[in-house]
């Protein structure tokens, strides 16, 4: 106790070390359409532990994606701070990979080209890139598609490539902005399973924005329910389904229905922002 008091910086760092991501009082407002400002995010505190899978759910328009972009460093917050590995986030960086709903592949590059591009940014030598790219594509279940262009792929395949490209950055944190939102139900279910497998194999820390309660329950260690604008953390739910888990197990779990109902009730209460 006395030692900690003598070195407040050290103790703060040790605390931050336990959290892969630490959000304290993150706030964001926008210039309103007519006049004044609209407060979108009203002060969010959240710690994400290393290797944890955390989902963000909330009523539409509550700023889930905005929060993710702030953590990614793409837009700045007006207040509060984001720490990644104890360091203040001031811009995008390879320690935080991001996957977008609309895939964000480079359409002028082949599947292999998209992945090798990210490998090159990480400084992987030219001769090692093809091998590593193939390994990553294999990890996301795309062994055959290397020479195709994104325009020749289905939505599900595009998102697999985007995940492979983000994995190529080798960031420990994976930010995912409704990554399966643009996919049909079947592809979506398949990719959820694949994501769990990849997460299990790679040990990434995942922060996952979704509007699907089922998806959040199936995937997450913790589910953070945000309130409507200006959003704050309304509830944090730890489903506690055993891992590795299958969809059937999760759906059959005795607590599933109650958790589902609880989250939905909260979202209903918040209403659309």
């Amino acid at each position: 106790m006395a030692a900690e008091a003598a070195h407040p910086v050290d103790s703060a760092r040790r605390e931050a070390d336990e959290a892969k991501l630490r959000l304290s009082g993150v706030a964001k407002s926008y210039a309103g359409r007519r006049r004044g400002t609209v407060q979108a995010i009203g002060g969010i505190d959240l710690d994400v532990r290393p290797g944890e899978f955390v989902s963000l759910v909330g009523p539409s328009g509550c700023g889930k994606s905005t929060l993710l972009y702030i953590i990614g460093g793409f837009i700045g917050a007006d207040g509060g701070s984001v720490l990644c590995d104890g360091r203040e986030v001031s811009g995008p960086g390879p320690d935080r990979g991001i996957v977008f709903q609309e895939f964000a592949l480079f359409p002028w590059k082949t599947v292999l080209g998209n992945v090798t591009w990210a490998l090159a940014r990480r400084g992987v030598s030219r001769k090692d890139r093809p091998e590593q790219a193939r390994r990553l594509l294999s990890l996301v279940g795309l062994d055959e598609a290397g020479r195709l262009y994104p325009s020749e792929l289905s939505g599900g395949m595009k998102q697999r490539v985007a995940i492979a490209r983000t994995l190529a950055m080798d960031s420990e944190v994976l930010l995912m902005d409704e990554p399966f939102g643009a996919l049909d139900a079947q592809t979506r279910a398949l990719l959820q399973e694949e994501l769990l497998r990849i997460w299990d194999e790679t040990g990434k820390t995942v922060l996952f924005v979704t509007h699907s309660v089922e998806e959040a329950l199936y995937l997450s260690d913790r589910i953070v329910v945000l309130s409507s604008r200006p959003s704050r953390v309304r509830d944090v739910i730890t489903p506690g389904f055993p891992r590795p888990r299958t969809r059937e197990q999760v759906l059959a779990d005795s607590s599933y229905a109650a958790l589902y109902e609880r989250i939905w009730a909260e979202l209903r209460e918040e209403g659309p922002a």
Partner: protein
Amino acid sequence: MTRLRAASISVAAVLVLLGCWEAAPRTGVAPDQSLPPLSKVLGEVWNVLRDGDFRSQVGLSAGRWAAGLGLAVLIGVPLGIAMGRAQVLRRLVEPLLALLYPVPKVALVIPLLLVLGLRMPSERAGETARIVVIALGCLIPLTVSATHGAAEVEPCLLWSARAAGAGPVRRLLTIVLPAALPQVLSGLRIALAVSIFSLVGAELLVRGKGVGAYLFNAYDIGRYERVWAVTVLVALAGLGLDAVYAWTVRRAVRWWEGDV
């Protein structure tokens, strides 16, 4: 509609026009002298193509065309890309382009000639004026399309690149440029058409040498078949350029989903 059917409708439209051209002078609807029937014009096309004088004029015109279009590409594309990424530059340059837009650029050849004539020998002034007019005409579609292309790069592409650690120069070269390429190319397609009519227009106004001058000379000496033959050749040159463009772009930009 099947592709074959769609194509045959288009071919039919052209055939009807050509048929009317052949029939109008023969049936007396149009005076035979000023509008010779198509068959005679096509015969004259052959004569013109074999005319050594014409071929040397084509060489000259092609040089002006390449210089004017090349100048426009070299200035317009970088300018447009820069405008697309830098709001201040866009606000600065866009009103100037808007002013220039409705001005018939070909008509500028006369004031250009007046200004340039004071500073250089008239031969060079004429040459420069024609090239500048072509470049001005092509500059607008190239700049505007490059501006839009660069401004409309999806932010998440640039964000992905930033997250991966790509700096501003690399983002410009490896993200903005290829992402803007389809729009730049569609601007180039318009510029190709503009370049042809600016070239001939400038050559008609500032005579001397070139395809336009050759055309006007034929008119002066009353060889109307030749006037029409050169007109047909100019149209074919434009069509040919467009076909080459489409063929090249389809192969070079295989990744692009839209029409070329």
